[in-house]
């Protein structure tokens, strides 16, 4: 059983379990599935700075902070306790494209450590992959009013066409960055 759990789970198992979070949160307490709102609540709690967008009672949304806190714990359990001992299987075409862009580490885990590493923090790599990337995630999701969970999963589940617009925009942005932006950026940071 533990052996089965520590294997990578197939997409239909993961998709089903993630989809079931939608009714679980609704039935538990009328909560709409969404993660990026937690970033707004953290802003409202820590440094509202009299900005109207952060002037609301974030304490009413504490459930969302518990939710993301739980995700960190779940990440620990899944990543360290139920760790998959084998290296990831990466699609050969992606692997070759990334190799050509200068990525070397394909075996140590879920992220390439030649990018995601504390030593890169104060380098161009850190500037692009942590600072710029993170900033765009936080700024973009709030500007769009939701992320993959709030729009793509919750919004589409509730047949909201604005969420379809948002989801398509996420994908267009991702394709553009992967094929047009990253080749340039990865050469620039000197991978």
């Amino acid at each position, binding site marked *: 059983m533990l052996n089965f759990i520590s294997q990578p*789970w197939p*997409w*239909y198992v*993961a*998709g089903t379990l*993630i*989809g*079931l979070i*939608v009714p679980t949160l*609704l039935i*538990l*307490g*009328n909560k*709409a599935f969404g*993660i990026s709102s937690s970033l707004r609540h*953290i802003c409202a709690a820590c440094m509202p700075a009299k900005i109207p967008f952060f002037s609301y009672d974030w304490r009413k949304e504490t459930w969302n902070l518990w939710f*993301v806190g*739980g*995700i*960190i714990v*779940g*990440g620990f*359990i*899944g990543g360290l306790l139920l760790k998959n001992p084998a290296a*990831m299987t990466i699609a050969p075409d*992606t692997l070759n494209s*990334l190799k050509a862009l200068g990525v070397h580490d394909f075996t140590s*885990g*879920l*992220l*390439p450590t030649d990018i*995601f590493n504390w030593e890169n923090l104060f380098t161009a790599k850190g500037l692009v992959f*942590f600072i710029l*990337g*993170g900033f*765009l*995630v*936080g700024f*973009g*999701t*709030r*500007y769009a009013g939701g*992320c993959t969970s709030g*729009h793509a999963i*919750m919004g589409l*589940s*509730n*047949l*909201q*066409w*604005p969420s379809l*617009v*948002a*989801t398509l*925009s996420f*994908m267009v942005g*991702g394709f*553009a960055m992967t094929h047009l*932006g990253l080749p340039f*950026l990865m050469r620039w940071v000197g991978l």
Partner: protein
Amino acid sequence: MVSIVTVEEKIPPVATPTKAANWKFGLVGVFFGIVFVKAEVISWFRIQEMFRLDSFHMYGVIGTAVLIGMISVLLIKRLNIKTMQGDPITIAPKQFNKGQIYGGLLFGFGWAITGACPGPLFAQIGAGYSVVIVSLLSAIAGTWVYGAIRKYLPH
């Protein structure tokens, strides 16, 4: 002293029937985090595969999740399922504004760079990629800057 105790005993316990305990959502989060890691959804490589159309995995995960979510919401509406507190379930509709396009594109850029949407950022940190704390802090800063300048942005 005795009389005070009697008075207190007459006061009914303070009940909050419409509010679920927050730790329950924490538990759902734990479950979600495990699924994220075990299905490799938090992997930078899997997101790269998705945007390079080299693997079906992420499309399968998101597609199945949407399908299951849709069926669930449909059943909740059809069967008039209530919350555990007995309240009717309500989902706020999403209003369209241009931010969904502009913000969506910007998030898409960030998604391809970090290989993570907000949920996986949290899960990556838990899974031991501690440097992602910096990405998360930058994401919080991004949200804050959006809040600060939103009145100047097209919506």
